[in-house]
């Protein structure tokens, strides 16, 4: 089982909390965005107490995402990058070869809903180009998408085409006006709201506007149908504690004074 942790740390120096999360959940691959810390700062804290030691897996041009892994970074080679996206080939010895795409999409502060949706079209296309290059579609996409699972860019066929159930995703693709569009399975739907285990979302925003969701599921993991059987549904979690301290304020929302305004996302793949 390979354990992954993604977190938008809001440019805070959270190396101690990160270290506790990694140790608590036995994380193999750590993905950070809005990380103002230099890689050596993260490594020094992680490798003070964690065995086996972590390595920094540098990208080539994507500055928005920093990746650290317990295995040799040669097994996590970049295949495609842009300023906000890195697609890596994860090819651990003896394990299934997959693609892992990590991204941090522009926020609603700077991009309209339409621009975000168009951004997803581009993201989907980049993933498909990478899949053609490696000749498989065993892809997992994770990141701060700055959109909810039900928004146009995530659900549209020419966007990420993320569907909420495995049964639908098992159809692999859908044809719309003569063109075939592959699915992603989006397990994040199952974590929405307070009837699910854990926090009702990964990011909280309240305002005085008419239309407010309050809790948002901006940080998501999506899995191609061909990788679904490897995805551990019980291993998917939005974390609200590092085992020592809560990441939430007294009002039950992410506490940016203590940690980040986003909550970390944990998931596991049986490769």
């Amino acid at each position: 089982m390979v354990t992954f942790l993604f977190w938008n740390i809001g440019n805070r120096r959270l190396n101690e909390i990160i270290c506790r999360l990694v140790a608590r959940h036995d994380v193999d691959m750590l993905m950070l965005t809005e990380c103002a810390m230099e890689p050596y700062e993260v490594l020094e804290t992680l490798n003070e107490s964690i065995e086996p030691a972590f390595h920094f897996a540098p990208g080539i041009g994507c500055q928005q995402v920093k990746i650290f892994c317990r295995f040799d970074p040669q097994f996590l080679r970049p295949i495609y990058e842009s300023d906000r996206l890195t697609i890596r080939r994860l090819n651990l010895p003896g394990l299934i070869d997959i693609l892992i795409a990590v991204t941090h999409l522009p926020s609603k502060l700077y991009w309209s809903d339409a621009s975000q949706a168009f951004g997803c079209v581009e993201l989907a296309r980049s993933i498909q180009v990478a899949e053609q290059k490696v000749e498989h579609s065993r892809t997992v996409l994770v990141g701060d998408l700055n959109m909810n699972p039900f928004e146009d860019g995530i659900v549209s066929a020419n966007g990420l085409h993320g569907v909420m159930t495995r049964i639908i995703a098992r159809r692999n693709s859908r044809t719309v006006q003569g063109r075939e569009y592959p699915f992603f399975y989006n397990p994040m739907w199952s974590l929405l709201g307070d009837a699910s285990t854990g926090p009702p979302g990964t990011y909280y925003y309240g305002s005085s506007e008419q239309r407010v969701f309050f809790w948002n599921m901006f940080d998501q993991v999506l899995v191609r149908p061909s990788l679904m059987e490897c995805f551990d549904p019980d291993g998917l979690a939005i974390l609200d504690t590092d085992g020592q301290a809560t990441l939430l304020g007294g009002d039950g929302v992410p506490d940016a004074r203590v940690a980040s305004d986003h909550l970390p996302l944990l998931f596991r793949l049986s490769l």
Partner: protein
Amino acid sequence: MTDLWPEDIGVTDVKAPVAILKEQAAALGRRTKNVVVGIVVTETISTGQFGYSFYLDAPLLQFSYKLFKIRHGVELYPVRINPDEDIRKEIAAERKLDLLLAKTESDFLNLLSLIFRSEKTRKVLQAIISQSR
């Protein structure tokens, strides 16, 4: 039947932005002995709009990096350029005008030069070339 079309149909001294991109893509390959090549990909936009993305491609690494994309209408210019965010910040230090819009072929060439010569582009190229060896 009388041919009513003008004599000079198809004759133009204006070079299409995509033609310029393809020339520069080939030039990169020549400079790096094809260790890094440029690839121009046509993007699907709306009717009447033409979009292209420019990638740095390293065949030996099976790696591509998207450097920028452009968009224009039927009339070729003006061209809107959307570079990598780090490059955009660098260029903003040198240009005060609407740096995303090239109104003429000359302006487009100047902007491309800024993008290709940016610190970010150099770093990406250096990283690709050194890892390809």
